[in-house]
């Protein structure tokens, strides 16, 4: 059993969720409410990782993470280290690869909040922030939960992009999914079986917890 791979996977999934969900609440809400030119283009960009082969996304990320590319150079300037084959690199890749899984459920949820509920909140004296916290977020909560669940589970299972930009450095970029592949390559069938079972269990428990929590809404029962 590769415990350090499990730890990398869990850390990666947790950080991805922590960073991506607040950002997706902002972006999903903006896409749901705002009417602006180029909105379709924006939505297409968000959805792109859904259809792109992970190796293609990984390839472009690998290029842009290089020290002679603007993004890689900027990162090196600010942090003093590179992005390729580091945990920060696979985290950044994971954030991009998971964008549609996080943004789309949240955007759909905001689109289903009747517009006049916000207006009713304003007329009741609630500021825009209070309206967001007390009216909108509780109503889109199931969407947020499902975004978090999808992002978490998808990060645990992500393989292609991580392998392209991270390789398989022990304790840094070797996630559980990659470790399983390594075990199979090394004919360690038992190790692969153990880790596969563990990944299955973790994914199932996460999803079960999240959907269970999201489903407990007394007011939504008809």
């Amino acid at each position, binding site marked *: 059993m590769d415990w350090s791979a499990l730890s990398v996977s869990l850390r990666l999934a947790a950080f991805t969720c922590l960073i991506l969900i607040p950002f997706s609440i902002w972006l999903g809400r903006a896409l749901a409410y705002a009417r602006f030119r180029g909105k379709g283009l924006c939505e297409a960009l968000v959805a792109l990782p859904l259809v792109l082969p992970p190796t293609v996304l990984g390839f472009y990320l690998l290029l842009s993470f290089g020290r002679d590319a603007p993004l890689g150079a900027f990162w090196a300037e600010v942090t003093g280290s590179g992005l390729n084959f580091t945990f920060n690199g696979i985290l950044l890749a994971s954030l991009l690869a998971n964008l549609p899984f996080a943004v789309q459920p949240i955007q759909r949820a905001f689109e289903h909040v009747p517009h006049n*509920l916000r*207006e009713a909140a304003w007329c009741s*004296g*609630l500021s825009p922030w209070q309206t967001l916290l007390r009216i909108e977020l509780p109503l889109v909560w199931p969407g947020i939960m499902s975004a978090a669940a999808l992002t978490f589970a998808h990060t645990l299972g992500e393989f292609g992009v991580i392998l392209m930009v991270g390789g398989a450095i022990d304790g840094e970029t070797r996630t559980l999914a990659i470790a399983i592949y390594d075990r199979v390559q090394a004919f360690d069938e038992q190790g692969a079986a153990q880790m596969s079972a563990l990944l299955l269990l973790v994914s199932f428990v996460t999803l079960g917890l999240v959907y269970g929590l999201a489903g407990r809404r007394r007011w939504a029962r008809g």
Partner: protein
Amino acid sequence: MGWLGAGGGLVADVCGASLRVAVNQPGPIPLAAEFVCQPGELLALVGPSGSGKTTLLRTIAGLYRPQHGQVECAGNVWFDAERKHSLSPQRRQIGMVFQDYALFPHLTALDNVQLSVRHLPQPQRRLQAEKWLSKVRLEGLGGRYPNALSGGQRQRVALARALARDPKVLLLDEPFSAVDQVTRRRLQRELALLRQQIEIPIVLVTHDLEEATALADQICVLHNGASLQQATPEALFTRPSSPLVARLLDRHNLFDGVVVTVNGQRRLQWGACSLEVAEGLDELPLGEQVTWYLPPSDIVLHRRDRPSLGERENPLAATVDELVVLGGITSVSLRVNHGDMLRFDIATHAARRNQLTSGTVVNVSLLAAGVHLMPGRADAHNNRT
């Protein structure tokens, strides 16, 4: 600026707490409306769909900003387009009941109301919210979520939420349209009772003339965003300011006539008849084409057995063209010799007693005091059925 009532006269401001609205814009939603609502008064904005009723309500609430105009309430300027001044909905202190109530589905009835009493210190909030729920007769239902309440109960929660804010003006956007007839009657009655306890301007948006007549002190008639006339229901139905207003109010008996002199007296020539008119005829030049309107209540059917009051006024013979029995009321259409149709309602038993049947000739009087003269011709309007 002078606040002109849409009827043309200056509307007296009896108290500084009134609501005054004057807005104007060519598009995208055309608006040219002016109205005033005094505290304790219920003003109904009526008009067909697309006449800008809801937009005007949203303008008062601060949810819509027209290009020109002002909104003033209780001496405060809420909106002034020229000075680029607009208070947010939060700062206008309004109570609004939305068409579909817009209750927060994830909060109980009590919490819905409690959200709008946050101007009070924390310990009083719950008590105040409960007080408002009991005022709208929802004691004991505070713990329910909106989806466990009936349509009428939801409307009451919405009303309690709007009033709990201690608003400066109460805005009602078609508040009775989403409930059944029986519930609607009951809610209208309750609103009429509740009104006696609140001394703020109330603006009701409705397309239901009956509802407006029953509830409102003043009615403002809107058409394509323009306010055509503001008056009491009684004045509006007897003295519409133009043929268009009469048409929007579903009035019949709109006709064309000419000002003439008969034996040295001013008369209104209508087909072969020259009618006596109590008011307004002397001011018009001879030969002037006018549109005139007669409220159905000023058409008096002569009884066959004995004469009744007012028979000497403008008597004329007409043929019964159509009788439509609607329960206890019968709608009678009479064809006058030159082709125009007079329409009025009488009690069904009276129609039977007078043996009214299609084709019979009857005598009626058109009361001179009821004849209302309007500028412009009615051609486009009096062929309506």
